[in-house]
Every structure is written in C-alpha cells, then in structure tokens.
C-alpha cells in the first residue's frame, strides 16, 4: 500500500491488514492519521496497530490515542452507571446501545472506540417516568426550541437530547431503533426482551440485535455519516459472534435488506470481500469519501445520501414541511 490511495480505503485497508501500513511513507501516515481522526476511528486504529514497529512519531500519536480512548471508556461507563442509578427506582432495566454497550460488554468493537453520547433503550410505556427520573437526577434539556421539541416528541424514536448539568455529558433515550415516521417498524419489545445483562443492572442487546441496530442506523436512518466506524462495528460483531440466526432475526424486525447490505459492505471494507451490486458500490463511494486532510469529499454524492436519509424517515409531505421549517430557521450566511 503506497501513497497512491487517497480516500477512505487507506483507512479501511490499514484496519483490515495492519501489517500493510509498514510500507507507508510519511505522507501516507499523515493522511491515514488525519482520516482516522475525521472518521473518529483513531483509537480503533491505534489498538489495531499496537505492537507493530512504527515510526516513532506515529507510535507516539497512536499511544496518545489509546490513552484517550481508555479515558473515554471510563467516562462512558461512569455515565452508564449514573443513568443506572437514576433509573433503578423505576425498575427499568438499563439497556445500553452502541459504543457504551460495546465497552460495557467488553466486545472487540469497543476497543479504542470513540464514544460520544450515552444511548439507552427503554420501554415506550416508561418514557415519561424515565424522563422525569433523569430530570430529577440532574439532566437538563439541551435546547428550548419548540419546533424541534414537538418534532422529536411526535415523530422520533427518542426523547430530545438531555445533558447532565455537572458532567456535561449527553444522553439519548430511545424507545425503539428507528423513527416512528420510517416505513419500517422494528420490534422494540423484542429487543428489550432479548437483551443480555453484562454487569449488575447493565444490559446490552443480543449480538444479532446489535447487528440489526447497526444496519438500521446506517441504512434506514442516518445519511451514512460515521459509516466507516459503523461498519467496523458490524465486522467486529460478525467476527466475534458469527451470523447464526441473524437472517431470521433481521426478517423479524423487517430489516433483512439492510442487514444483508451491512454484511456485504463490512466484508468489502474490512473482511474477505464479497460479491457487490451496483448500489453497494455507490454506498462504498460515499462511505470512503474522505481525503488526506480528513476533509469530506464527493459533495454531490453526500447531498444525495442526505436527502435520501430524510426521505426514508418521513412521508413526502412531512419531509417538505420539515425541510421548509429548517430552511426558514437557518441563519443566512
């Protein structure tokens, strides 16, 4: 792998076959590190490359990234503990999602992973009680915007974001894994019922449900932002747990297509590769749209996927109203 690769494939290949990075020149390392930071995967890369004989400066940057990820892990788990304590009186089991779940369960996907907000899943029937308990325990609403607030409450799969007033950390409280406006309605109760306790009072989704969630988040919800990291999660989960029963579980949630695509793309980026269709290639073009300065590239393609993500989440009339409201409120620049 020389200095020729100048998009996200540089990062993907380094993660897939760490030894190949030894052929990088200084320009290649500079690009790889900038890209990994932009994709929030520098910690993952650092753990993946640990033990290789790297240039001294690179080794130091990656050692710092590991330290940073470790501190992030501590903070994320403490935040989960704080939420567990806040919700314990309600008898609501605390089901962790995404990054915090990976580190709480000590999964390979959690090694070096950057973790932002705390994402949790609670029963929809308990949403009001959970909200009240969190407000009581020191969390506050982030924004007072009435349109956003009403929008969240009416249509989204989560409460408007809350932030803890002392610890400055955000929590996203989900009651399912896709917006209510999306055309697919996964079985939220089934997710909770199959969850697994990984520490006293802390639960995570079953491995197959984690895969379903990752796929849902990537293809039926988001605009593929953070997609390289998301697919790394998928690849790690598949390598660690296999895919037994996954087809049935995906079908049960109505997400067969999305899960199959996630597996194909993860294999293409980080695994042994697999047969891809034309749409898959388009997705990969979008996912790897990143240059050696960490900049987002391929803007037209990004925009296309952005509009698509909204299309998937909302019926057309609602989409028009949403974009109109957002546009009117946007600052003139």
């Amino acid at each position, binding site marked *: 792998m020389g200095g020729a690769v100048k998009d996200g494939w540089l990062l993907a290949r380094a993660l897939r076959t760490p030894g190949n990075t030894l052929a990088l020149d200084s320009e290649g390392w500079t690009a790889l590190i900038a890209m990994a930071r932009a994709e929030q995967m520098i910690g993952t890369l650092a753990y993946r490359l640990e033990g290789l004989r790297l240039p001294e400066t690179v080794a130091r940057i990656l050692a710092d990234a590991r330290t940073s990820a470790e*501190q992030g892990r*501590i*903070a994320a*788990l*403490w935040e989960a*503990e704080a939420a567990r304590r806040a919700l314990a009186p309600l008898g609501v089991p605390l089901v962790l999602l995404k990054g915090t779940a990976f580190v709480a369960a000590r999964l390979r996907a959690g090694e070096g992973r950057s973790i932002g907000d705390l994402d949790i899943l609670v029963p929809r029937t308990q949403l009001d009680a959970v909200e009240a308990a969190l407000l009581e325990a020191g969390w506050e609403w982030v924004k007072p915007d009435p349109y956003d607030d009403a929008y969240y409450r009416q249509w989204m799969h989560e409460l408007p974001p809350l932030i803890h007033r002392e*610890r400055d950390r955000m929590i996203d409280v989900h009651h399912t894994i896709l917006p209510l406006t999306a055309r697919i309605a996964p079985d939220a109760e089934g997710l909770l019922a199959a969850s697994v306790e990984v520490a006293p009072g802390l639960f995570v989704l079953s491995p197959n449900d984690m895969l379903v969630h990752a796929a849902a988040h990537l293809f039926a919800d988001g605009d593929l932002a953070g997609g390289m990291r998301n697919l790394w999660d998928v690849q790690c989960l598949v390598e660690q747990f296999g895919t037994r029963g996954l087809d049935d579980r995906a079908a049960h949630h109505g997400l067969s297509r999305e899960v199959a695509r996630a597996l194909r793309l993860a294999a293409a980026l980080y695994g042994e590769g697999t047969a891809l269709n034309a749409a898959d290639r388009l997705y990969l073009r979008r996912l790897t749209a990143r240059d050696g300065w960490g900049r987002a590239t391929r803007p037209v393609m990004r925009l296309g996927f952005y509009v698509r993500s909204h299309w998937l989440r909302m019926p057309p009339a609602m989409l028009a109203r949403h974009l109109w409201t957002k546009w009117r409120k946007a600052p003139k620049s």
Partner: protein
Amino acid sequence: MPDRLYRMERPENLRVAHLDSFTAVYHRNSGITHLITAPAPEILATLGEAGMTFTALRETLASAYELGDLDDAALAARLDELVAAGLVSTA
C-alpha cells in the same frame, strides 16, 4: 430511612492527595477529580472499607469528634453527596 450499610470506595480505586483544608481525590471509576473538605474526609475515614450503618456512623463520629451540629439530615446530605460522587457505596 432503612439503616443501610455505607462503605468507602475501595482504596485501590482512589488516589488521594492532602493539600490543606481540602483533599484532592481522583476517582478511577469515573475519571473525575473531587476536592473534599470537612466533614467528608472524616466520614470516609470513619466508614472505612468495612463500612457501617448510618446509625453506627453517627455514633462513631459523635464519640470521635466534638460535633457542633449533630443533625441527621445534614449527615444524610453529606453521605448522599459522597454516594453520588462514587466515593461511598451503599449496600
């Protein structure tokens, strides 16, 4: 209030530096630094790892110190703070 058992966080999870009337404590499980002042260090030292009940704590403090204000609500408030910070656990 049921007489719960209160325990100081295990010493290997803390780093402590006595500064002046304040003591700096780094709590490894949260990554958060706290500056604590009287009566918090005294409460921690009294509870110890073995821990004791609220009632026992109140009695022990009262015999070890000249308590200017023996107030259950105040002692409970101090304990709540320590529990929230993770420096004391309840069982």
